[in-house]
């Protein structure tokens, strides 16, 4: 049975490390839904968070294959108790008639208004996938111009 897993990888920040990691998924035919990378707490190392939909036995194999990449130092698969969040910027059509409605909804979602023009609003929202997607659904009534989502980043609650 296929499930959604989040895998966190700590890799040496060398040329090609990110390509090797993302390349693994296409080379071996694994389904990757999102991949994000950024600096980690350790100097010279990146943290890469990958969201995949695969069977548990394939996840096992993915972890082992990730470890074979020379630059990879640590791999961790999160269970569903981990804190997982996504960040989104969304641009919505708005004029003087709809602006206050949208802002009211944004407040309910604890979203932040980043920019206001005569015909649109840019809103920033952080949350789990269902919150992000819920907000997108509601905003469809007003007209979505652009969406920029980061993909999930995650952290285990334990040490």
């Amino acid at each position: 049975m296929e499930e959604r897993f989040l895998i966190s990888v700590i890799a040496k920040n060398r040329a090609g490390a990110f390509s090797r990691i993302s390349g693994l998924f296409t080379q071996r035919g694994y389904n990757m839904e999102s991949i994000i990378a950024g600096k980690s707490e350790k100097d010279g190392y990146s943290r890469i968070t990958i969201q995949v939909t695969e069977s548990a036995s394939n996840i096992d194999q993915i972890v082992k294959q990730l470890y074979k990449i020379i630059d990879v130092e640590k791999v961790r698969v999160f269970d569903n108790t981990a804190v997982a969040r996504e960040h989104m910027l969304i641009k919505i059509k708005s004029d003087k008639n709809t602006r206050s409605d949208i802002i009211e909804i944004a407040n309910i979602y604890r979203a932040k208004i980043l920019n206001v023009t005569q015909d649109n609003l840019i809103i920033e929202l952080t949350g789990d996938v269902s919150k992000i997607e819920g907000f997108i659904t509601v905003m469809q009534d007003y007209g979505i111009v652009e969406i920029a989502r980061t993909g999930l980043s995650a952290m285990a609650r334990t040490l």
Partner: protein
Amino acid sequence: MNTINGARILLECLKRAGVSDIFGYPGGAVIPLYDEIYDFEGITHYHVRHEQGAAHAADSYARATGKLGVCLATSGPGATNLVTGIMTAHMDSVPMLAITGQVALSVLGKDAFQESDVVGITMPITKHNYLVKDIKDLPNIIKEAIHLATSGRPGPVLVDIPKNIQIESIPYSEFEALYKVDLDLKGYQPKYFGHPRQIKLAAKAIGEAKKPVIIAGAGVIKSGAHELLRELAEKCEIPVAMTLLGLGSIPSLHDLSLEMLGMHGTVYSNYAVHNSDLVIGIGMRFDDRITGDTEQFCPNAKVIHIDIDPAEISKNIHADIPIVGDVKNVLIELLKEVSEKINIDWLNQIKEWKNEYPLQYTKRDDEIRPQHAIETISNITKGEAVIITDVGQHQMWTAQYYKFNKAGNFCSSGGAGTMGYGVPGGMGAQVGRPNDIVVSIVGDGGFQMTSQELMTIMQYKLPVKTVILNNGFLGMVRQWQEIFHSKRYSSVDLSMNPNFVKLGEAYGMTSIKIEKPEELESKLKEHLLSNEPVLIEIVVTKEDNVFPMIPAGKSVNELMGKKGEL
């Protein structure tokens, strides 16, 4: 001030790592490197005729010696010509270092002349690869590349060196200081020793098994564990089946040898594994040519899997008792834990299968059967020559009828199945083993893919014996078309072949043709044991098949040609 340039740094690092031979081909982006090779002492450069030949020669050199194989090519097309050879080495975990020249950093990324992203191209077929962007990184990169290629599960590593870095210089003292810097490889810590608890569990399972069987793979040979394997087999009376590349792990004619397993393996090895209650996979990876249908593979057996690569454990076949470690170290410990044991009923059963279904073919008076040719080569060389093959029917007949007496004497493209491996493979093995008889057995198809290396063989007076089994077909594909596609022989007819003897002579090589069964032995004897390069064409039965055969993805129940024919 005493300085050293990038090209010389490379050669110096290789020499310090014990590299004595390089196979390569010059070109624009490696001219500075060749300028240093010109009078560098301690490394012999073999000038091949095509970069693919360099890669296969380096691969075969590594397989035949256990040492690192090194190949060298220029940027762009030179580098891409290495690709098939690198992939071949990658599939079979062969320690290889591929060096490529790259356009200067000032024009990199601008689609410069002969520029190609070889690091990107080879990322999935190397263990690791590097683009050198600073001469100060070069000493450490070369050291690290060699370490990665030869340690843990070996494999090919590529280093791409831009031309300007080959030319730039640094003070010699700085090079020495950089060379001394330790490698920083926290993410790469191969496990060489098996977990003691797992080894105890394995010993217990061996003690309890009634029908155990070992499957020995190339890892046994790479780790130098063939004698320990034999000791284990004899101590606990466990028969040994071998993968293609595991041949030689135990002498083919040893009482406990089941010879090759899998698609074209012996009936008794396949029966033994299928009926076994304990399969011990050692240094092998349960490839689909071994397992066929994984659902029906050794259905009643517990599986012990010993391998240095944790990713091989339970990849294809679930391992009940996984042991991650170097085969040699694991076997040393395992031998301490197991007690002597007899499996008389099981061995009797296997003897029955061996008697009923020996590898067999019927000799003919009017033409040479390919099996007969291989058997004759095996007898003449007493199973002790270094054997290289190309890929196809002749490869399988060699695996079946060459009775390997020693480990590390067989170089063949297993996982990749690379046609064109044979001729340059023979060259590389002979360079690595100058005092041994090296016989490269090829088909008439694969021979033509890399036959240009006959020139290199002549140039360096390498006494390789290149034996073409000429059946005028791409035999293995023809066999599948015969059996599975109602003899619709699509693009397999090679009756338009060159005159091989004349071709060999054009290269200045002693070249002979053998057509009659009665002259097979005498002519082979005369030429296989000579000390010059020879091309031997043996005309064999046109439409012969490799049997036994388990069709792809099927199980032992569908074994065909158990008695050598349909």
